[in-house]
C-alpha cells in the first residue's frame, strides 16, 4: 500500500499563497531566491512596511509572488520606481528585484546612481549569466567562453570585454558607513537568508543595500541537474561569494 503524504509546503508569511505554483521554469533559481527573501522578511517582521518591485525579464514573473504590495515595472526601471517610492515615503522598505540585464546593462545607470546617492532601498540582482526570458542571449555577466544565443561559439572577451562584476562595482562607489553589499548564491540558502536579513536591516537603518545572488538557468544553459550544479560552482569561483561592504554591528 502506498501512503501519500498530504502535507502542505511550509510557506513564508510574506509569500502570497494565493499566487499558486511558481511560474518559473523547472529548476530555475528565482523561486529559491524569492522564498528565501520572504523568510527574511518574516524573520524581521517587516512585511507590513515592505514594497516590492520587479523588473522585466524572468524576474517579472514574481509580480504576485510576495504577499506585499508589489509593482512590476519596465526593463531596467525597477530601481528608479522603488527609490521614487521610498523618497516619497521613507517609512517604506523598498526592494527592487532584477536580473543581470536589468541591473548591469539597461538599468546600470540607475543602480550606479542609487548606490552613489545611498538611496534607502535594497536592490537584489539575480545573476544567472544570461538573459533568460528572451531566450538565452549574452548578459553582462556571461562567463568567458560561455555559449549563448548571441555568443554561439562562446563569449570571446577580446570582443565583448570581461564579465561585469556587480558587487565589486557597487562596493567601489558607495559610502561604506551606510551601505551593505554582498554576493550570495542559491547553493547556500541559509547564508542567503542571513545576507538578506543584514541587507534589510541596513535599509531599516536608512542605508542602501545591494545583494547579487548567483543563480541557475538550466533551461537556457541546456544543463541537467549535475551540470547545473557544476556550472554554479564554476560561477562561485569566478564571482567571489562574500560580504563586500557592511556597516558595523549589522545583524543577520
Amino acid at each position, binding site marked *: 500500500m502506498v501512503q501519500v503524504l498530504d502535507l502542505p509546503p511550509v510557506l513564508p508569511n510574506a509569500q502570497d499563497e494565493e499566487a499558486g505554483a511558481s511560474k518559473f521554469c523547472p529548476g530555475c533559481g528565482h523561486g529559491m531566491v524569492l522564498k528565501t527573501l520572504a523568510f527574511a522578511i518574516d524573520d524581521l517582521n517587516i512585511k507590513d512596511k515592505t514594497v516590492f518591485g520587479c523588473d522585466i525579464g524572468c524576474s517579472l514573473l514574481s509580480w504576485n509572488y510576495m504577499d506585499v504590495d508589489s509593482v512590476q515595472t519596465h526593463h531596467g*526601471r525597477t530601481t528608479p520606481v522603488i527609490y521614487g517610492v521610498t523618497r516619497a515615503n521613507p517609512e517604506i522598505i523598498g526592494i527592487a528585484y532584477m536580473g543581470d540585464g536589468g541591473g548591469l546593462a539597461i538599468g546600470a545607470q540607475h543602480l550606479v*546612481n542609487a548606490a552613489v546617492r545611498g538611496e534607502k532601498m535594497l536592490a537584489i540582482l539575480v545573476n544567472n549569466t544570461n538573459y533568460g526570458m528572451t531566450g538565452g542571449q549574452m548578459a553582462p555577466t556571461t562567463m568567458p567562453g560561455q555559449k549563448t544565443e548571441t555568443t554561439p561559439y562562446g563569449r570571446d572577451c577580446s570582443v565583448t570585454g570581461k564579465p561585469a562584476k556587480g558587487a565589486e562595482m557597487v562596493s567601489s562607489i558607495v559610502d561604506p558607513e551606510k551601505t551593505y553589499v554582498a554576493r550570495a548564491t542559491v547553493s547556500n540558502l541559509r547564508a542567503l537568508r542571513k545576507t538578506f536579513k543584514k541587507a534589510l536591516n541596513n535599509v531599516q537603518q536608512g542605508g542602501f543595500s545591494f545583494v547579487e545572488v548567483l543563480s541557475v538557468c538550466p533551461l537556457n544553459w541546456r544543463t541537467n541537474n549535475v551540470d547545473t550544479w557544476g556550472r554554479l560552482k564554476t560561477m562561485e569561483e569566478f564571482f567571489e561569494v562574500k560580504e563586500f561592504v557592511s556597516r558595523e554591528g549589522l545583524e543577520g
Partner: protein
Amino acid sequence: MVNKLIKEDTKMFLTGNEVLAYAANAAEADFMYGYPITPQNEIMHTWCKLLPKTEAGFLQTEDEISAGFSTIGGILAGRRAFTATAGPGNVIMQDAMSMAEMMRIPFVCAVMQRGGPSTATVIYAQQETTLTCFGGNGEGYRIVYSTAGHQDLFDYMIKAFNTAWKYKFPTFILADGYQGKMREPVMLYDPASRGITMEKTPAILRSGVSADMKANHIRNTFNLEEELMEELDKYEEEFNRIAPEIEEYEEYKADDAEILIIAHGIVARSAMTAIDELREKGIKAGLFRPITIRPLAVKPLRAACQRAKQILFTESANGQLARMVLEKIYGITTPYSTLYKMGVGVTGDDLVQKVESMVKTPAAI
C-alpha cells in the same frame, strides 16, 4: 502636508517656469523629481529655492528615464508628485509615460517644448505636440493642455493635477521655452478661493498593510492578446466618455469669421494680434484655439470650420496640430491653407500677410 505659499490673491511678475513651480505648490503638490534640460530648468530651480518654506520634496535624478519612473514611484506611494522636461528628455521619458498610460497612473508632467529633431535648439518650438499627445508604444490615453501664457500656466497646472487624479490618465502641460523664460504679470491664488478642491491622492503601494488586507499587486504585462485588448477597449470607452468633461477651447472673433485661424499655444496669441489688425482692415478673421490638444473639442471645432469660408493652420511646427484636426473635421469641405515655421515663432505680421494673401488668392485645398 506641504505648506501652501499663496494664501490670498497675489499679482506677480514672473517667468513661466517660476509660475509652474508656484502653481504646483498652490495645487499642494508635494514632490518633484527632475533632470535638468533647457528650457524647463527654472521650474526645479524655483521649486528648490522654495523648499525651506514649502517643506516639499525634491530629487534630482540621473536622467529623464529615472525622473519619469521615480515620479511614478512617488505617485504610487501617494504623493501628488510631478516632473517636467523638454526635447530629447521628452523622448526618453516616454518609457515612463507609457507605463503610466498602461497602469492608469496620475502622472503629471510639464513639457516646455524646444526645437527638434535631436538636440536642435534649446528655447522654442511646437514640435513636441505629436510626441506629447501620442508618444508611447501602443495606444495609450493621455490628456494634454496647451497653454498660451502665464495665467494659463498657473490655472492649468493646478487643473492638471486634479484631472490626472480624478480620471487616472497621465496629464500634460504643453508649453514652450518662450512661455517658460518670458516674464508676464500673473495672478496667483489659492485654488480653494476659486472653489477648487484638490482631489485626494491615496497610496497604491502602501506601508502599514495590516494582516487582513490583501496585498496589492500591480502590473503592466499581460499574458494574452485578448486580455490586453479587453483592457484597452475599456480605457478607450472611458476616455471617450469623459472627453466632453475635459475638452476646452477658446474662440476669438470666430462667430462671423470668414477666415478661421487654427492655432494652439503661444502662436494663438500672435493670431489674436493679427486678427485685430485684419479686422481694422475690414477682413473678417477669427481664431479657434484648442486648449486641450488631446482630447480635441471636436463639436465646436467642426462647427467653426463649417462656418468659415477658409481655414488657416499655423504652427511653429510642420503641421502637427493640423494633422490631428484634419482627422477630426473629415467631411467638411472648407478649403485650407497653412503657415508652418518649423521651430520658429509665428508673428502677428506673418499672419496678417498670409491672411491678406488668402483674401487675394483663396486656398484651393
